[in-house]
């Protein structure tokens, strides 16, 4: 019964979404307030219906209802509760329902928090989100119904892929999808602006917080996925340039460009068309990411669905959304206008350069991700584009953008004087260069790449400090606290996010430069020296787990003869599928991790004997995720800015009148 209710709720949600997308649009075109007023209640009704459908699916999973195909394929009665819940989005169907739920959630949020928006704009924004929702609901109902029954019912489920039985599965997909789908708000604002032919600083102020929040969630989602891969795949890597990772990274790069471009549009009224184009691009890439991951076109850990019919549907949907919005852009961009002019050396020009680099970097990732697919589709042979390609292209492209990050915030809007920038920054430059050249000697090994990475890190840190000091010194208020309070949260958010980039680069540089990886054969009682540490293998003992049998190794880590940690890496064999999984044991430290994972028993059928073992030292690796979280935190802090709540309201009267006038044209 529960699955049927869920199915029915989805059908109703589709009908509501159809109404939500067509009527308010018609109302906005005809200037009919009653039709436009339907947008908000429709968005809410749709949200509650989708939540209900999602709850029905979750209940089927938690209640082990193996008469539902999706549950029977992706769950098992032995599965612990939290993973039965997470299994709701462990399958293709379930993850699409999660996508739709997120979309309905964001639309709901727009309907709640945008009371001050002019009704015409709000009607259009919610209608465009409704259109996207129609596409996804159609897709769910016609190609991937999560509520399909299995006749006869299975006695036991086939189990969730053991790779996904991890706390990461509970939080990583929701966070990532919050980010992906969050860009639909920026997209809808952009389409609404194109439809209305009006785009001004107020528009940018309205869509900015939504974009920043989505971006922050996406940042967290990607970081969580990377951390999960680090401890669960057992190879100690944190980023593989796997197509699935790229699928989430491309919207992130574009989203990063978008939040910067929105800043210019809000403060200076410039970059208008470009901002709109980026908003379309960011969401299109989110859709493309969904297509790449969900249609099963890739060889990768996440592609657990393979069905060409779905691929064709998503491809058609992509073509309609991306093609349609680009055509609309081509028609209406002229009306929106380019926006104000600015000097060759100015904060605008540096942000423009940052935008160009980010988009070009995104394009190079896109090329490396799609090229093998094209060749394969055209039967020109099978190739793979691995990490070396991305390393060779991505780092040199991003380096200049990161360098500009140090100067940009100090440059004045409109026109900055180069001599002035030089006097303010020459010491920062000198300090960063000298320290970056000397530090690798202290750390033990000097290579140009390490020095370059450290330079970029130090450059951001030092310029941020310089910027902050000058800002405080330039404040007219009395007392340090008052001077600090004079700056807005969004200013601190920017500083924090930029420092996050510095921390991230430091992590990447140091782990790439100084990591030690050893795959060794270890007999019971044997030790291996890696760096300053001795790892002593005390053998492996079998034991039970909730839904698996575990083989637990014991490895003592000593430094200068003193025991500092006993690590317990595990090998699990899952009961339902018989699949093996490696769980690394990691001694986490702020200066670096000690990482041990089990390979296999080297004497056949003797788990108590010698094993192959991976012993890794990963200096500063946690800074990578720490940096990402700082960036996200910066994003959330920026959104806390009062001006998004109050200033917008104050402008209400004038802009609403103007927007209405614009719509009536």
């Amino acid at each position: 019964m529960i699955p049927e209710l869920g199915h029915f709720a989805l059908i109703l949600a589709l009908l509501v979404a159809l109404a939500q997308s067509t009527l308010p649009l018609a109302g906005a075109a005809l200037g009919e307030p009653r039709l436009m007023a339907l947008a908000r209640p429709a968005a809410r009704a749709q949200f509650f219906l989708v939540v209900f459908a999602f709850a029905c699916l979750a209940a089927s999973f938690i209640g082990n209802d193996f008469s539902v195909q999706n549950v029977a394929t992706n769950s098992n009665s032995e599965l612990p509760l939290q993973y039965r819940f997470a299994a709701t989005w462990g399958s293709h169907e379930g993850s699409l329902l999660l996508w739709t739920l997120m979309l309905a959630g964001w639309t709901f949020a727009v309907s709640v928090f945008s009371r001050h928006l002019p009704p015409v704009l709000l009607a259009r924004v919610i209608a465009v989100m409704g259109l996207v929702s129609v596409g996804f609901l159609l897709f769910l109902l016609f190609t991937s119904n999560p509520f399909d029954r299995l006749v006869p019912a299975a006695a036991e489920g086939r189990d969730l892929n053991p790779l996904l039985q991890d706390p990461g599965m509970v939080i990583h997909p929701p966070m990532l999808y919050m980010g992906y789908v969050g860009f639909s708000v920026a997209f809808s604002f952009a389409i609404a602006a194109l439809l209305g032919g009006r785009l001004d600083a107020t528009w940018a102020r309205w869509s900015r917080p939504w974009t920043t929040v989505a971006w922050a969630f996406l940042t967290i989602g990607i970081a969580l996925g990377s951390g999960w891969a680090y401890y669960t795949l057992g190879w100690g890597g944190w980023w593989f340039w796997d197509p699935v990772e790229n699928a989430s990274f491309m919207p992130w790069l574009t989203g990063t460009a978008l939040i910067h471009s929105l800043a210019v549009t809000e403060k200076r009224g410039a970059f208008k068309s470009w901002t709109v184009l980026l908003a379309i691009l960011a969401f299109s890439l989110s859709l493309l990411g969904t297509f790449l991951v969900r249609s099963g076109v890739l060889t990768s850990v996440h592609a657990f669905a393979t069905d060409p019919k779905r691929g064709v549907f998503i491809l058609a949907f992509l073509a309609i959304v991306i093609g349609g919005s680009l055509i609309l852009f081509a028609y209406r961009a002229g009306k929106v206008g380019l926006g104000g002019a600015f000097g060759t050396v100015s904060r605008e020009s540096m942000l423009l350069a940052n935008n160009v680099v980010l988009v070009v970097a995104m394009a190079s990732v896109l090329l490396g991700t799609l090229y093998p697919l094209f060749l394969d589709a055209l039967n020109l042979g099978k190739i793979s584009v691995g990490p070396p390609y991305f390393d060779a292209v991505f780092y040199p492209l991003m380096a200049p953008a990161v360098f500009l990050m140090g100067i940009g915030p100090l440059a004045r809007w409109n026109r900055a004087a180069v001599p002035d920038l030089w006097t303010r920054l020459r010491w920062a430059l000198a300090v960063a260069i000298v320290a970056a050249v000397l530090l690798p000697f202290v750390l033990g090994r000097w290579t140009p790449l390490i020095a370059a990475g450290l330079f970029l890190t130090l450059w951001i840190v030092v310029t941020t400090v310089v910027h902050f000091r000058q800002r405080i010194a330039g404040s007219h208020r009395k007392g340090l606290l008052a001077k600090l309070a004079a700056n807005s949260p969004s200013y601190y958010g920017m500083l924090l996010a930029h420092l996050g980039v510095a921390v991230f680069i430091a992590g990447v540089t140091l782990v790439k430069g100084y990591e030690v990886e050893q795959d060794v054969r270890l007999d019971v009682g044997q030790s291996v020296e890696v760096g300053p540490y001795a790892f002593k293998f005390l053998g492996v003992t079998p034991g039970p787990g909730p839904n698996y049998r575990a083989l637990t190794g014991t490895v003592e880590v000593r430094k200068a003869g003193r025991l500092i940690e006993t690590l317990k890496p595990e090998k699990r064999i899952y009961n339902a599928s018989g699949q093996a999984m490696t769980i690394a044991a990691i001694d986490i430290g702020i200066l670096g991790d000690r990482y041990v994972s089990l390979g296999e028993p080297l004497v056949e059928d003797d788990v108590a004997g010698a094993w192959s073992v991976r012993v890794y030292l990963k200096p500063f690796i946690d800074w990578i995720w720490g940096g990402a979280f700082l960036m996200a935190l910066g994003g959330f802090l920026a959104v806390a800015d009062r001006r998004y709540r109050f200033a917008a309201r104050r402008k209400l009267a004038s802009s609403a009148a103007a927007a209405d006038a614009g719509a009536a044209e």
Partner: protein
Amino acid sequence: MKPRTRRLGWIVGGLAALGLAAALVLNAFRSNLVFFFTPSQVAAHEAPQGRAFRIGGLVEAGSLTRDPNSLTVHFRVTDTAQTIPVAYTGLLPDLFKEGKGVVAQGTLGPDGAFHATEVLAKHDENYMPPAAADAVKKAREGMSTRTLVTTQGAGR
């Protein structure tokens, strides 16, 4: 600066960035693309010598042997028509099993053995890497003619 010169400057700058990116991409493509070959193609000498490529198929049942004193393993990859011996030093992934699909990256030695630097076996038990599945499918399609050739060879 006049607006027109400035716009020209931006266009030139943009083109320069694009050109730089294109140069980086082409250069990286030239040296880092890895092609895929099936065991049948390798046996027919279609695969390059000395350059890294990928090979895919099934791990032949009963072919896995371990060196007792190191982490070196030997196994054979088959597409059911042809079989290529593979040597690899390191830890095999969890899903590596005899009779299951596998993809390995490495170079072909002069002895005709494939020296793998990386062994990939992903996904769940029932999943076969598309490249490996493709290799087996291709071999099966070409089976009739190839079997003929083998029988002739055997008769000689």
